[in-house]
């Protein structure tokens, strides 16, 4: 095989172009976070997951871990845990939405040694900062119908929507949540690995809400079904009741793979799940939620990917097209979170979602 000669100019060109790419990623992340902070957070709103409910309980790292040993995930250790379930991005549980769980290893609404955010579906709706910007740009929401053009233009986005949305969810508890973009995992053996996490119900209850054969149009039409009888807050009420009656128990699982220099960039692609036969899921922890939090505390609860040990952090990204740039952007959106908490202090809390017939809306004022 003919060797490619590297010239000084070539090295310089690569260095400059990489620097430009990184700067561009940084700039876009900052601008995006700033815009979110100004136009959404300062009005008391999250970027998307406004409609949610938080709960608290305890998390127990498994006693016989099958995953590589890690100083943070010490076997048998117990952490306080606070979670928040939400539906994105409408204020109506009966709509065709993505559902989420965010976990923090703490009972505090902000501080924690470890936070993680997950959504339903094994793949996502976008896969890089560039695609996320296109996703945001193409939302064009009206009366509960959105992303029509995005779904038409991007086959993977459409497929991701098919896999991720849960119209007929019966409970936040019986859904499967995945963090699709991998994170860093450097265990006790100091071998660099990548890790993905997921949350399942502890009792293996069958996942609800999956539409097996949605048409392309169904995915853009997120409105409630005709003759809908479920209320705007039915999922939150169901969760409150479930926790009050018997606690909500979950399993946090982890999937790891050893890093290599010549890894295909596709392994970071959140649209491509890792092969479970080669990289099986292992139980990381079991946790239970023993009480739910009120609206105010739920709204205050905030998660951040900066809340992670260095050995479990976000993977570096090189450009806005890099699959890791998604987590990079999340990490750089701290300003938006802080702006939201500030807005509560200035303007007060946003009111709870009323149980009225004002359906298919995403704004409190609508």
């Amino acid at each position: 095989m003919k060797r490619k000669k590297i010239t000084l100019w070539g090295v310089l060109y690569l260095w400059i172009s990489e620097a430009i790419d990184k700067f561009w990623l940084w700039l876009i992340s900052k601008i995006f976070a700033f815009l979110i902070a100004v136009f959404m957070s300062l009005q008391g709103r999250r970027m998307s997951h406004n409609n949610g409910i938080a709960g608290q309980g305890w998390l127990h790292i498994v006693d016989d871990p099958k995953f590589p040993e890690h100083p943070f995930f010490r076997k048998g250790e117990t952490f306080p845990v606070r979670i928040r379930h939400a539906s994105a991005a409408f204020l109506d549980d009966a709509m065709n939405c993505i559902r989420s769980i965010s976990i923090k290893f703490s009972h505090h609404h902000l501080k924690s040694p470890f936070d993680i955010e997950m959504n339903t579906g094994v793949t996502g709706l976008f896969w890089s900062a560039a695609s996320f910007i296109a996703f945001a740009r193409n939302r064009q929401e009206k009366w509960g119908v959105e992303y029509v053009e995005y779904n038409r233009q991007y086959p993977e986005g459409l497929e991701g929507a098919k896999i991720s949305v849960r119209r007929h969810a019966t409970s936040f508890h019986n859904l499967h949540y995945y963090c699709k973009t991998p994170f860093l995992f450097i265990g006790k053996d100091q071998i660099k690995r990548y890790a993905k996490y997921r949350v399942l119900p502890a009792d293996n209850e069958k996942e609800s809400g999956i539409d097996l054969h949605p048409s392309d149009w169904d995915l853009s039409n997120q409105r409630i079904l005709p003759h809908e009888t479920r209320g705007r807050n039915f999922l939150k009420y169901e969760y409150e009741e479930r926790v009050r009656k018997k606690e909500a128990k979950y399993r946090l699982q982890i999937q790891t793979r050893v890093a290599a220099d010549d890894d295909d960039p596709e392994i970071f692609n959140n649209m491509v799940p890792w092969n479970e036969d080669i990289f099986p899921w292992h139980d990381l922890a079991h946790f239970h939620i023993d009480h739910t939090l009120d609206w105010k505390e739920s709204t205050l609860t905030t998660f951040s990917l900066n809340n992670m040990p260095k050995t479990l952090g976000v993977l570096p990204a090189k450009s806005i097209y890099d699959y890791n740039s998604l987590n990079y952007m999340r990490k750089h959106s701290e300003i938006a979170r802080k702006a939201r908490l500030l807005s509560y202090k200035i303007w007060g809390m946003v009111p709870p979602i009323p149980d009225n017939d004002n359906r298919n809306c995403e704004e409190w004022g609508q």
Partner: protein
Amino acid sequence: MEDNIQNICTECQEKTKILYKYRDGFFTPKLKGINHLEVGYSWVISNPVTIFIEYLYVVWKRIRRLIRRLSNWLFPRRPHIHAGRLDSYITGRIIHADHKETTSPIHHIKLEFWGRTKWYLGFQWRKLGETESNNYGIFHLDYTLRQARNFKTGSLRLEIHQPFEVHYNGDKPSTSHRLYHSIPLIKTNLIGMGYYVHTLALPLWEYRKDTPLPRTFHSKDSHLISEVFSQGRIDAFKQQVIPIELTKRKHMFQIEKEPGMLSIADIQADYPENLTICLEKKLPGYSRSDEWFGIRMMNGMNMGSFQPDKHDASLYHIRYFGICNYDHNTKFALPDADIVFRIDSAGPPKPVSITFTGQLNAYNNDPWQKHTYTPSSGDEWLQAKRLARVCGSVVAEVDDHFAGTHVNTEQYAIAAFRNFRKNPVTWLLYPHLKEVSVINVSADNILIHGFLPSNTALTEKGVKDRVYDAMGTQNWKGWKPMKVINDSHTYAIAENLFWDITGKFVDFFFEKYEAGIKEHWNEVYSFSNDLVNHSVAVFQSQVITDMLSTEERERSRERFEYACFRYAYDPINSVKIVDGERKVVSPITLTENFQHEEDFRNLKSACRYAIMMATFSHTWINEHQYDDLGEILYNCGGLRFGDKQRGVMAPESDLSIAPDLTRSTQMLWFTNLLSRTEYGFITKNEEQDIHPYFIQLLNENKETFAKLGVDIESIESRTNI
């Protein structure tokens, strides 16, 4: 004596073979283009000021062409693909725009993804990827995202290229592609993974919706043109047509200003001498003789089919069915003609009788009146032969020329251009089927809309209905050339010889490319489907016979029987029924993958037939039009009833039944136009698109053809006039 006549005929044929030596000068009139031809005034630029402006325009066009060439040199489109890891793709589907459902894919069409650098990097083209659509029209073009979205790239576009021309380098064929359509892509829309450009419905080789005939839709959008004439064809046409166009314009001007100053004789004299005039000068009376009548009916433009008489083995019938039930005017006569010939083992056919069924004068309009004339009928016999010639010419022009070759070839052309792209049959058919669809656009205007309705008994609607019916017996399956009756039947001998040569050539081609043809059989399947599904219904199969009178039913039966005999059509071969219509064309294959050897043979037969129609069959009629329709009083598109009781049964000296001055000049203009403005011959191979083996086979038989009066140099490789 016979040899002498033969020599004079040959001499006249040579003499009347007109080659225009048209010299283009600055102030000589110019023709705008082939599609600007009109039966009335074609778009000719003759005013010096306009010519000067036109000249400036031409100069501008040349400069533009120069700029384009310079641009191609400065900004070359290099084939190298700029790509690293192919991490993204563009996908979509390409379908034909004509279907009600989105189920008609454009398969195997070439797509290229191009970027252009920003101005400060010189607007250089960068090829980013290429692919082709699959059997279902779906394409998946891989590219490297960072190549498309790096800072160098200014604009992006996805291009669709259609195979356009076939070229032979020795016996190695290649297909050149032409940019058909380009879709600008917004750079920021490319974000990695897939990008779906939706379903693209393109009017590429679409079927027209405004006619039941299998005709091509030509988009008015200059960016979506399926086919254009080659430049050589346009140049040749422009040069050759100007002299006759000027002659016609002069006559039209005179008729408008001072009709009394012009006569039919003047008009005739202004056009080049044709075969019959030449003969009359050398052998007075011969062109009106029984012998000449027989020779021309056998080997002339009409190349009549001699149907054996049911009772007498030495007698044969040529039958021309006139206005029938078609929409017609009341100015011209077009009765049915049944011409009976006696044909011996040698020598030309001798006319025995001519029977007309239908109206012969303005007063008795009974469509079923019969008049029979024999050589003993005196002057009326001469008049009957003239009327029979006229009937034969109209029928040959509509049924054989326009329907039998032009439209018939076009139906194979559309199906071939829609479907053959990877299959080696592309190399076989493209050169012979090209340009027919565009010349047919002109034919619609000049012939169907212009010449025929004003010069014959048929209206435009009548012509269209007749063409539809005439197509109802045109099928590749079972077709064979005319049976040779005796040695004088030179047309049939030449037709059989050409058919054999075409067969040898097609066999050779199929043997050489058998593997490729079978590999890409799905293209054959789609070709067959398009061909059959868009073909017309079997002749008058849609007519409710119970609603016809006894006479009409009988005529319909006789016409069908004669058409089956003439076009070697066997209705048993028309097996497919689509939307309740029994389609005339037989399917070539019924399977998407190659399964049956018989299908392979079917494809061979269909290709052989299509080439035959596009080349020899069309050339014969087209070439001989000026011979048989180049003398106004000898033959024309229609004899007028006049105002006398005798109607059309009148001598040539009675100009009240001959075409009027306008129609006379139009007719000579038209026949000149068709016979004398040709380009694209097999052996000349002007565009290097004919397979050398086909040329070789023809050259090997050059002398045999010459003995039959056929100059192989003048056999067209395609139907383009």
